[in-house]
């Protein structure tokens, strides 16, 4: 099977509002795919469905050959779907290292007694987890902030730390919700390079929600366009750029026309 994740006929209803309408979406292994669309199109809602936060009113999600539609959010995270948030949601009053260790929670085993007694097994586990956390922090370029409270980091570093935290889950699918929002062009470029490096070095696929067309077009292998909850187009960046429906629904608007 070449798709790590397949979402079939997903619909999400909020009262009278159909936020996502019958959307099919798959993520091939080791790829970068993007989801774009105007504000309120349902992109974040779609992420929330994939991560189990909302249950779809119709449709199912298959991850790595397994139906995960009814799985609890923490289970979905544990088996390898990690995400970042549109508005950064780090654990602000925990250190960068602790943020990553929290994400490793489901992969660590020490229970209450082992922690109180500090068994050699528990100490070893903690030490290894800390080392791994440091590796990931270094990889994400925030290695010097290990013991700093997350909230004290600069905006760009917080974005990177959030990705690092997601990576600490050892995910096969990484969902990034507008990761370059608020970054300047240089920072965005650094971020793009980082995502490319990620795909090259790790067994992970990235799904990107992004408003910055430059980022989307340069990094994605495939772009999907959502408008008012409906998928209106899907294809290579070039195809999307010249798709008349997309131009009408999205690129034609002043906001996306840069």
């Amino acid at each position, binding site marked *: 099977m070449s798709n790590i994740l397949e979402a079939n006929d997903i619909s999400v209803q909020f009262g009278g509002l159909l936020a996502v309408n019958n959307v099919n979406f798959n993520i091939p292994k080791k790829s970068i795919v993007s989801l774009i669309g105007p504000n309120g199109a349902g992109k974040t809602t779609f992420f929330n469905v994939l991560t189990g*936060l909302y249950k779809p009113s119709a449709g199912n999600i298959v991850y790595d050959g397994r139906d995960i539609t009814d799985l609890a959010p923490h289970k979905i*995270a544990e088996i390898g779907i990690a995400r970042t948030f549109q508005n950064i949601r780090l*654990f602000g*009053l925990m250190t960068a290292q602790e943020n990553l260790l*929290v994400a490793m929670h*489901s992969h660590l085993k*020490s229970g209450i007694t082992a922690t*109180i007694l500090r068994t050699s097994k528990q100490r070893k586990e*903690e030490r290894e987890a800390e080392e791994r956390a440091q590796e990931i922090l270094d990889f994400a370029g925030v290695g010097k902030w290990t013991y700093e409270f997350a909230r004290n980091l600069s905006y760009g570093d917080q974005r990177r730390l959030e990705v690092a935290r997601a990576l600490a889950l050892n995910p096969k699918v990484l969902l990034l919700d507008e990761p370059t929002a608020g970054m300047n062009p240089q920072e965005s470029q650094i971020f793009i390079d980082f995502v490319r490096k990620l795909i090259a070095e790790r067994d992970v696929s990235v799904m990107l929600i992004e408003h910055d067309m430059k980022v989307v077009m340069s990094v994605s292998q495939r772009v999907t366009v959502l408008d008012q909850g409906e998928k209106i187009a899907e294809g290579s960046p070039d195809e999307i750029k010249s798709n008349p429906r997309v131009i009408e629904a999205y690129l034609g608007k002043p906001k996306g026309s840069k």
Partner: protein
Amino acid sequence: MAKTIAPNNVAKSNRKWITGYSIIGLLLFITYQFLLPWEGLPLGIYDAIYRWMPPSAINESLVYIIMALGLNIVVGYAGLLDLGYVAFWAIGGYCAGWFMSEFFYFLNINFLGSVPAEAPGIHINFWMVLLIGGFVCAVFGILIGAPTLRLKSDYLALVTLGFGEIIPQVFFNGENFFGYNISNGTKGIVGVDSIPVGVKNLGPFDFGWKLLIFLLLTAVMVFISLRLRRGRLGRAWLAIREDELAASMMGVPLMRTKLSAYAVGAFAGGLGGVAFATHVNGVYAERFNFTISIFLLAMVVLGGMGNVWGVILGAFILSWVNGNGLTAFGQLYNEQFGTEIDFASFTFLLFGLVLIFMMLFKREGLLPESRLKLMLHEDELDQIDASSKSGDK
């Protein structure tokens, strides 16, 4: 600009406090066990100690400290509001009443108890009853937690409030609990077994030695708190306190993690309950009322949520004021000025005022956890940040 140093509370070693704690504990023990009964002690000092901090009062505040440390795990670490913590105190107390007295006079069970084998009732060794009380409370913690922890925090607070009312009421009317007498009702269970410590058995008036035991229990709670806090579970509690949704998206099972906070907190409640029963030599239903829950919560908040040392300080101060300090002060005041003011009746007025002032001027408590301080003084910190930045140029 931010610096890369390990913040307090995060990388601090567990070992350092043990020395300091032992020294203070030993001094207290020597004072109460040897100095106080010593003939050569000047009468002035003797009177002062008995007026301001008699042996029974210091032991009672230690019981409060143990309880407050347990509540701190639920409220301070995991950020769950619990308004019914007194229920665990009661359950722990009745565990002592059931398993360490002649209450079940028709039975004759003796397991390493401190009374002769032929004595009627259940007599289990104090140290085991401590564990039993702790675990029974932990189970109850899970039982009420499981159906309620899904609720949003306000509703959770209400449910715990109800629980804290129901359990003591059950014991209060426990003379006929579906046909069984489980508590002697308002008469209470009078007399629990003494504490066996090898060389002797500690009865109700062995204050000095029991002080040592309560100090030990407190140390155990501090130790458990600090260790858990630094480990996998403690991090998950903090993460839930910080951002529940993000925590669940990072693979932290919310229910299990919250339940474990409840269970560990309740366990401490059980320890405190058993300890209290041996302290007052009995179990009396009317003592477990709602004000205790609020009182404990006030201790945690006053001292500094999430920081064990702050909680100990808060619990010590409040239980002292409540138990002895205010009365002693009132006596002194009335003697000096020839008035007849009943100071003890102002206890709750004073607490109310203290809490209001704390919330206005020192919200993070007396000895706050560094993280919380940071959160509550966000604005000021930002200002300092800004001024230091402009100063850089």
